[in-house]
């Protein structure tokens, strides 16, 4: 090999080893429909979703697989539902640790417990804990399965993008490989290259926001312990290992421990194993046998790009927005980016939808990022109060939370990721006032049990027209888009989640399982108009 592509991190799984592509010998650069840069969870999910929709996609990553270290850990129900649509959820569920119970402590006092167990009648649990490399591996397994079924996905390891040149009808890339450089072109470029996004920097785009003046130490430890499968959070813990602490179970007898260290610390010193062990010992007690698995120190940051679409370059995941970890809103929101983008880009590539449909990706996911940053900022302000008076109120809340349930609603150790509702989106159509607010246009469809299986798994890959308590046509078409019909008899869950005060309902549902419009009767002209609106033709 002539050229070295240095590894920035150690791999947990080598998934797509470098292999020379014919593109590297082409005399003129080969142009692809879609190129994804970055092989993290968001890049892999983007390639998978686009490929399953028939869009030829090439993924470039300067590594050959999933990096070591737990990193993203809590995957939310909506993420699992999206991964199920992508054919990747079953092994995640099998390997992941399911949890519902959280406990909040102040000093040595248990203040209260909370149960995340959502209402019944959902295929997936509220959360699973799964180490990020496993999440990536299962997405990769689904890519391999999709490729076997003909999905046009190509993964190129050790392909580092060194330059990007936007043009009117494409984006040109300079790529470095072990066999030297080559050029390639993309009609659409999706930048999933992480928080430090080299593409964002090469394009000179900003990433504004706020850094919180605090450091957090993650110590993932391997131990056979009989702590229950719960999320334990301490404010000002009695064992003095940090200003706050978190204990959370992962698969393979690994436990996530998080200590808040404060701002003025010596990073190198705090990462010395002996020093980490002293903190862990104080927390777990002297008799617990464990080994350190993975450790890291990080600061909280909340940042986002002003816009996620820049012509033919689309940013998704951490490259577009960054939040603090409390609330599990990083990888989960990135997966929602993918969910939102892939169907839109597929319709644009097919020539069915106008390019401006992609502006709704920008609008909807900026809205999602704003919501996540707001929640994350509030949690961070509660966990690490910035002023003496802020700390006084925080501790007053904690002092009341032990005995007064109202104060528990104010305690904020992270508001856990919930899917975003695209209120006010230009894609939203008609609403019906008698139907439940939770399924208003813009909302992600809540799951519900059916006679056989689950509602979400019955929704189509494209648009679905769902009739509850009335028949809708099995197939319709409008504006070049096929519409799959799904007629259902009312059930208690469908009634509560979709009918409300209405006796019957017709829902137009987008390919990302968000509601586009709803009525209490079938009017094909109204459906066609809402469909046009939902693909940006209006």
């Amino acid at each position: 090999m002539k050229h070295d592509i240095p590894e920035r991190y150690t791999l947990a799984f080598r998934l797509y080893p470098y292999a020379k592509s014919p593109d590297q010998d082409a005399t003129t650069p080969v142009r692809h429909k879609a190129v994804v840069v970055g092989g993290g969870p968001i890049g892999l999910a983007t390639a998978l979703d686009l490929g399953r929709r028939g869009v030829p996609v090439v993924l470039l990553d300067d590594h050959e697989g999933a990096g070591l270290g737990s990193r993203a850990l809590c995957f939310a129900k909506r993420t699992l539902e999206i991964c199920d649509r992508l054919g990747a959820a079953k092994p995640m569920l099998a390997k992941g640790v399911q949890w519902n119970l959280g406990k909040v402590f102040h000093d040595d006092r248990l203040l209260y417990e909370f149960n995340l167990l959502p209402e019944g009648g959902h295929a997936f649990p509220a959360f699973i804990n799964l180490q990020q490399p496993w999440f990536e591996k299962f997405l990769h397994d689904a890519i391999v399965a999709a490729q076997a079924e003909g999905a046009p996905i190509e993964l190129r390891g050790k392909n580092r993008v060194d330059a990007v040149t936007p043009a009117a009808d494409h984006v040109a890339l300079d790529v470095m490989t072990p066999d030297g450089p080559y050029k390639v072109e993309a009609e659409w470029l999706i930048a999933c290259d992480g928080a430090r996004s080299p593409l964002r920097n090469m394009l000179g785009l900003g990433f504004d926001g706020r850094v919180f003046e605090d450091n957090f130490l993650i110590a993932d430890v391997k131990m056979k312990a009989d702590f229950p499968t719960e999320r334990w959070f301490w404010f000002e813990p009695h064992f003095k290992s940090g200003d706050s602490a978190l204990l959370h179970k992962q698969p393979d007898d690994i436990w996530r421990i998080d200590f808040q260290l404060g701002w003025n610390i010596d990073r190198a010193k705090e990462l010395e194993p002996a020093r980490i062990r002293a903190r862990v010992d104080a927390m777990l007690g002297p008799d617990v046998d464990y080994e350190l698995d993975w450790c890291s120190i990080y600061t909280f940051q909340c940042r986002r790009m002003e816009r996620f679409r820049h012509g033919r370059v689309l940013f998704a995941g951490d490259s577009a927005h960054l939040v603090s970890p409390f609330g599990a809103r990083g990888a989960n929101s990135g997966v929602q980016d993918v969910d939102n983008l892939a169907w839109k880009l597929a319709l644009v590539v097919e020539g069915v939808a106008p390019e401006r449909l992609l502006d709704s990706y920008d609008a909807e996911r900026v809205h999602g990022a704003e919501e996540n940053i707001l929640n994350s900022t509030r949690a961070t302000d509660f966990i690490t109060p910035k002023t003496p008076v802020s700390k006084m109120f925080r501790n007053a809340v904690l002092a009341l939370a032990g005995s007064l349930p109202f104060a528990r609603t104010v305690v904020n150790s992270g508001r856990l990721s919930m899917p975003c509702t695209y209120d006010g989106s230009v894609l939203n159509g008609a609403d019906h006032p008698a139907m439940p607010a939770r399924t208003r246009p813009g909302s992600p469809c809540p799951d519900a049990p059916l006679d056989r299986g689950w509602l979400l798994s019955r929704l189509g890959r494209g648009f679905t027209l769902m009739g509850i308590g009335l028949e809708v046509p099995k197939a319709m078409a409008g504006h070049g888009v096929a519409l799959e019909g799904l007629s259902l008899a009312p059930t208690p869950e469908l009634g509560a989640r979709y009918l409300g005060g209405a006796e019957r309902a017709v829902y137009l549902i987008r390919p990302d399982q968000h509601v586009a419009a709803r009525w209490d009767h079938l009017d094909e002209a109204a459906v066609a108009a809402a469909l046009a609106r939902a693909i940006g033709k209006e």
Partner: protein
Amino acid sequence: MLITTPNLTRPDESYARLIATHEGLSEAESHALNARLILILMNHIGDEAVLAEAMLLARDPSAV
């Protein structure tokens, strides 16, 4: 709508009780008590719009 017209049933008693509640506390303890009291009263009021009005008024009493 925040009530700003006289609304205390026994103003002198309520004020005396507020002062007496702080008796014997250090300044830090008094601040902490005030914080707890504000939170308890906030919950009693409940309405976010009324609370917002009250906080604005406390910050700038001339903004009536």
